[in-house]
């Protein structure tokens, strides 16, 4: 049994090293909340491992020390049982003490987490949809309110406040390297404060089962220096760039004539749908279809031509387009920087 255990531990160790390199890992914290939680995870794990080893010793060592079975099952040594009772009571007392300690520890960790967002500089409303994220930057000036999708830019080193809700089913917002998860529940509003210590791209995905494409509902937090973030916000507020090339112009016309316009919005054009992601600056994003594909001309074409092949069950319908038409639409969308 011990041999198997050590083998398991060795395997686990090897795998652990591999996994820490991940960019969606609770063990690779990049913000104060995740750091606090990673510390908590390691502390609980260490203590649990210790307790487990002690229990295993209490099981295995007496097995190896004794050589023969009790002869008569009812002949119990009352003195020995009295000593055992003391051992058992001590163990129960220690268990209770450890549990009280862990309860207090988790209570105080919770207080630390709650303090992170007390001076949040930015409020972002994140609304869950099957199977993408609507992201709205709140601002006192109505003209500065910005709506985008799936990728959340934040200033690095500053706490931000996310207001989480949903219009359809329950989703859960989770960026493991920055913070624990919180549900997006229709009819409820949850508040999640988080902070990224350094600039970087932090991946997350929906953590509450939400239907057919739960697996492909990724999101990114893109933390940038403040100046770069402000510039990004200003850029995103601009209406979409008007197409210049003929092919792209044809693509815009097709977009506005075909069913695309029913669901998507493109700022500066008549397209004003709100049930699907805002495409005003689509090409400035890193991924397509909520983290499913990387942004490229080829992937754009693939996604439009075969959404049900790439995300079976997704609400993006197939829009019949000829090869030339598809190329034109892609050329137009590709220009929406």
């Amino acid at each position, binding site marked *: 049994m011990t041999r198997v255990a050590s083998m*398991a531990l060795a395997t*686990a160790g090897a795998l652990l090293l591999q996994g820490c390199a991940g960019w969606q890992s609770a063990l690779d914290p990049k913000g104060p909340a995740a750091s606090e939680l990673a510390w908590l*995870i390691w502390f609980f794990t260490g203590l649990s491992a210790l307790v487990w080893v002690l229990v295993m010793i209490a099981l295995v060592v007496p097995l190896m020390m004794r050589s*023969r079975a009790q002869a008569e099952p009812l002949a119990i040594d009352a003195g020995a049982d009295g000593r055992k009772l003391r*051992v058992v009571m001590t163990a129960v007392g220690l268990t209770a003490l450890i549990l009280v300690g862990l309860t207090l520890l988790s209570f105080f960790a919770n207080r630390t987490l709650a303090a992170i967002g007390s001076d949040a500089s930015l409020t972002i409303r994140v609304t869950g949809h099957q199977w993408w994220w609507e992201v709205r930057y709140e601002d006192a000036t109505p003209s500065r309110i910005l709506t985008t999708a799936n990728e959340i830019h934040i200033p690095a080193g500053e706490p931000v406040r996310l207001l989480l809700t949903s219009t*359809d089913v329950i989703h859960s917002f989770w960026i493991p390297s920055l*913070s624990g998860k*919180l549900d997006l*529940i229709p009819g409820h509003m949850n508040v999640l404060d988080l902070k990224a210590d350094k600039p970087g791209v932090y991946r997350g995905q929906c953590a509450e089962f939400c239907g057919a494409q739960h697996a492909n509902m990724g999101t990114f937090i893109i933390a940038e220096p403040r100046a770069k973030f402000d510039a990004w916000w200003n850029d995103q507020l601009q209406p979409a760039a008007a197409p210049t090339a003929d092919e792209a112009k044809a693509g815009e016309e097709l977009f506005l004539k075909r069913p695309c316009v029913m669901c998507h919005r493109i700022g500066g054009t008549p397209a004003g749908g709100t049930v699907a992601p805002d495409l005003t600056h689509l090409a400035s994003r890193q991924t397509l279809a909520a983290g499913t594909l990387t942004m490229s001309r080829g992937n754009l074409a693939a996604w439009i031509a075969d959404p049900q092949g790439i995300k079976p069950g997704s609400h993006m319908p197939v829009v019949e387009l000829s090869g030339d038409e598809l190329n034109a639409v892609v050329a137009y969308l590709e220009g929406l920087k």
Partner: protein
Amino acid sequence: MSSADLASERDLPPEREASVKGDIAPEHDGPRDTGMDDAGLHRWLTRTWRTPPGIIGALSSVDHKVIARRYLITAFVFLCLGGLNAVAMRIQLSGPQRGLIGPDLYNQLFTMHGVTMMFLFAVPIVQATGIYLVPLMVGTRNIAFPRLNAFSYWIYVSGGIFAWVSFALNMAPDVGWFAYVPLSGPEFAPGKRADVWAQMITYTEVSSLAVAVATIVTVFKQRAPGMSLDRIPLYVWAMLVTSFVVVFAMPAVMITSTFLILDRLVGTHIFNPAEGGDALLFQHLFWFFGHPEVYIIFLPATGMISAIIPVFARRPVFGHLGLVLSLIAVGFLSFGLWVHHMFATGLPKLGASFFTASSMMIAIPNGVQIFCWLATLWDGRPVIRTPLLFVFGFFFIFVIGGLTGVMLASVPLDLQVHDTYFVVAHFHYVLIGGSVFPLLGAAYFWFPKISGRMMSERLGRWHFWLAFIGFNAAFFPMHLVGLWGMPRRVYTYPAELGWGNINLFISAGAVVFFLSFVLFTFNLAHGALKGALAGDNPWDAGTLEWATSSPPPSYNFARIPIVTHGEPLWAEREALPVATGLRVDVRELLISTVAEAHPDIREKSATPSIWPLLAAIAVGGTFVYSIFTPWAVAWGAAPIAITLIGWFWPKGDPEDEE
């Protein structure tokens, strides 16, 4: 109702003598076992208690052992089906972006896996074990309400068939085993899939409630004379506490599933936030059942461990009273933890912290149990046989699951691991380690009693090591992949997250674990056909089920034993004292008092009847019909009423004479 007129062949201890009322049985009452020779007694009792021959006879059986065997085999079939679901999922997840199984099928697979394992395997199999063993362990001839017991089986099997036929028709539930609204509500789950989930819950809950009621009454009223509360075997205590938990927990989930059906079928808006309903209400109601459910599965397994360890440690269990109190404490506390499944829903932080404390607290009685079992094993070198190996496996695995459970009880920590593969690892460690390993140990332990033959010890060891290694290889790495950010219930994952290799390893482990069950099935079949004959008491155990032959006769005990010790067969090495005075020409039980188990009255036990089957068909038909129209309740009432009238039609038995 006749007053008890039992005379014991041996003098009862003085404090119990007073309760044995009446004199010698009046002659007109029918023949009794008093003074009858063994061969004659056997003939009489067999004729009275046997299951009638023929197919109708078999379908009419109310023998708790026959019903339990059917339950056990059916639950085992569902275990295999649920296991096949899991293997299919593991093949799909063995690498990133595999295209073997699409989301539509995958979502049905994991829902069916969860539903099958929880409702069609785990709960029924622990209850079935109880149906078989509890009457034998308390020394009675049949379970209380034997027809209700038969009815419960038919309802259970029809619910299981209903779910799996739905799966075959591509209309299995695909909303997860806890089917959260609004995802399972009318707007986001069109079709009948979510209704199948809700209605299957109703089937299995009706059946487990019936078994729970029968178990409680059997334990309280049918114990052999002298089996006072402190002499009840721990396994029976565990089944008693479990049955109470069932009685209080199951109604919550029946309300949940009924509300869901009302929302879907009648257009109520109980869970619809747009109309003033609340989506979170569903979660509260579900987990108020859902957390005790875990203990419904786990507590019987602790009873099995408490039965197995003393036999192989060759001494009575250490801390009997502490273990009983722990069982009761766990039963109560299990109702105060449900919110720890909902920490990520954004509940008020202080309120959530209370549930951290209560969830931590339940580790104390569970710790008491673990420590008492360990202390039992400290006396001498235990006899290491396959059942004990599985108990060792339980310690190794379950303690890990319990400790990760403590991690999940912490609100902040839970927010990182909730709904990830860490949780998947945790509950498989708890449920497989805490329940399936003890069940496998129990299978080896009680197989000789049920079949009369031993299972192979050599194959048993192979089976244990295969299961142990396969299980840990499959589930230990899930802790890690969960911490690396892999959510549960995803049908695929991108290659760039680096989860491919570890998932391949997990899948390989899952296949090994599955193979261990193939070996187990072979060992079962081999043991049943060619195993060495077991004899009455192959392990030299101390409890009453080993006092009768293997397999037990239809009437369980030729004469009702009198219990003088917590381990009666160890205390009375030559022969158990017995009570006599029961009639042999009709099915008669000895009813005893709740606390002291004084013999109190004689009571008839129900005879075989086809009506429970017909009633189950009527009820089951109504359930299926009612996912299509609410009028099914009205249409179904008539056939159900007819079958119940047939069931309870007074026969004019001289049951209540005198």
